[in-house]
């Protein structure tokens, strides 16, 4: 039986990894890494530009930090010297009885952060400080993208493409009978196909996750990256990899079963997508009947969407106590195993009737 499952694996892996029809799955998996890479290149170039400006117009960070609102422009120049950029505008004043005011914008950089001082009528009215990206800020962005795009869309649709194709795709291609005419138990065939889908999806999406993390941290100082890795870094990376693999296992079993049970598995896939998407707004008891609830509980950085939601939407959100990590992992694995056992029973009754596909 093991040799037969290995043979199914070989056939399916080749088909899954090298199918032209599956190219979009690679795009889904690797597009975020590409976006992070573009961001990293942009940040690096921006940093180099600031370094060059700082070299031409040197100023200490402490000097820039000491400047406060209400100080005069003379005090600004005395503390920080000449800015690398200055603009003056004479602005008509509509409020306060009309008239004109002189507005000046002075920009400084210490090589890392950019400081913009808005001076009105000789006094500093506003100070904008634009920090260079830092790992803490970027890891929060990564957490949001990972949970709201990567897991819910990329991994989800990737698993739809990979796992539904294992049975239903071959029904449509009229090539499933070659497998059913082999002297192996149908459950063994199903296990072989599931493992092939799992290996393919985990490989593709875990590599996608790692590439995103690599692209994200590429532009930081090696020292900062090393400090991050020796702090929470490796643990977070392991968690993201684990969550990605669990997502593939959970969604994979559901979509393999859907491909086995439904003539048009897109409808159940759409239902699952809807269910997973509205998870945030479901009552606490229903939240727990979903894959994303457990996956989010396992993510190392909490990505809260609350800030961007309207008051009405916030009112709709119900909170449920996130499960402990071991409960989430065990729960997901048990559900996956249950779906696979059920699929195995159904596979025993599987018939070839291409005419009605």
């Amino acid at each position, binding site marked *: 039986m093991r040799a*037969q499952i290995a043979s199914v694996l070989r056939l399916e892996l080749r088909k899954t990894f090298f199918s032209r029809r599956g190219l979009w799955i690679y795009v889904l998996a690797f597009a975020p890494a590409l976006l992070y890479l573009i961001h990293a290149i942009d940040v690096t170039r921006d940093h180099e530009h600031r370094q060059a400006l700082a070299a031409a117009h040197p100023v200490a960070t402490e000097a820039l930090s000491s400047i406060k609102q209400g100080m005069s422009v003379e005090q600004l120049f005395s503390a920080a010297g000449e800015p690398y950029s200055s603009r003056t505008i004479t602005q008509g004043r509509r409020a306060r009885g009309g008239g004109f005011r002189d507005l000046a914008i002075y920009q400084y950089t210490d090589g890392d952060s950019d400081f913009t001082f808005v001076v009105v009528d000789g006094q500093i009215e506003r100070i904008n400080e634009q920090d260079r990206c830092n790992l803490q800020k970027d890891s929060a962005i990564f957490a949001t993208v990972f949970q709201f795009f990567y897991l819910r869309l990329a991994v989800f649709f990737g698993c739809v493409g990979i796992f539904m194709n294992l049975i239903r795709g071959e029904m449509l291609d009229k090539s499933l*009978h*070659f497998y*059913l*005419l*082999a*002297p192996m138990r149908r459950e063994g065939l199903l296990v072989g196909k599931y493992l092939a889908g799992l290996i393919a999806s985990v490989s593709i999406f875990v590599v996608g996750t790692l590439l995103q993390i690599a692209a994200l941290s590429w532009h930081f100082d090696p020292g900062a990256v090393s400090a991050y890795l020796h702090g929470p870094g490796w643990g977070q990376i392991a968690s993201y990899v684990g969550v990605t693999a669990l997502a593939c296992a959970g969604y994979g079993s559901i979509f393999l079963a859907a491909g086995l049970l439904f003539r048009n598995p897109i409808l159940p896939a759409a239902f699952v997508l809807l269910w997973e998407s509205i998870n945030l707004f479901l009552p606490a008891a229903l939240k727990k009947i979903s894959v994303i609830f457990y996956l989010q509980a396992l993510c190392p950085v909490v990505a809260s969407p609350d800030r961007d939601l309207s008051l009405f939407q916030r009112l709709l959100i119900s909170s449920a106590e996130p499960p402990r990590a071991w409960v989430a992992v065990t729960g997901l694995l048990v559900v996956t195993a249950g779906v696979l056992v059920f699929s195995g029973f159904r596979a025993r009754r599987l*018939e070839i*009737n291409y005419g*009605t596909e």
Partner: protein
Amino acid sequence: MTDRVVFDNVSRFYGEVLGVNRVTLSIPPGITSLVGPNGSGKTTLMNLMTGLVRPTRGAIRVLDVPPDAPERLCHLVGYATQFDSFPKGLTGYEFVYSFLRLFGYPHDRCVKQADGAIARVRMTEASNRKVAGYSKGMRQRIKLAQALAHDPRVLVLDEPLNGLDPLVRNETIALFREMAREGRHVIVSSHVLHEVDQISDQVILLSNGYVVAEGQIQSVRGEIRDQPMQVWIRCGRPGALASKLFELDHVVEARLAGDGAGVLVKTRDADRFYNALNRIALDGVDLEGVTPVDDNVNAVYGYLIGEDR
């Protein structure tokens, strides 16, 4: 252990649609043809005996193995379906080899058996090309190689001669005969009746999901009492022969050929007719040749099914 493929009162319905109904058969080794027009139930019978579909009623046993035990059945059975579809991206050799590996055989054995099966259908030269680039005839042959690569005792072939050129068709028929001589079952379906005549040891005639006749073609023909049997007799004095034949009560018609070369006789009792013909020959009428005209599948099918063909 029986050497038969047995259907015991088997019916299969696809929802409201009838696949086959109340089929009882016992198919011995040799070449058996399932004959019938499209939709008559040939493919359903084949799918039933290979476990690809299950009977709604009744029981099937293939050499004593039920089709719902694929791990045993598929060692015994090889099936080349009518579907002209293949797993994508494989060469002919990879196709045969990969599906042999599903049998759990080791690599060396798979290589040997794949090479042997491919050579048997004369596809060795093209075996390293992608199946997608094959002609229809080549695809038929590589499918046949895949079906027989594990050396099955029952070979089930759905329209196996479709798309083959005459030379390859003859080679393939010779292969079927060779396998039948080895004591295997070669069960083929066809709607080309003259082809069936050429290759079959026995036929199963199907119409609208029912088995309308089965057995050796001559015995099936003999069973059809309401259609007089036709025999073409070449002789020197057809007029004299015709007058003697008219004296027989079971002869319903004796028609002289236009060129005077013989007589076409219709009789309701073939056995008595041949006995009488022997006596006529002993009486001095010179008979050059006696050929049954309608004991072929084409005629039998026409008599049995009539307008349904």
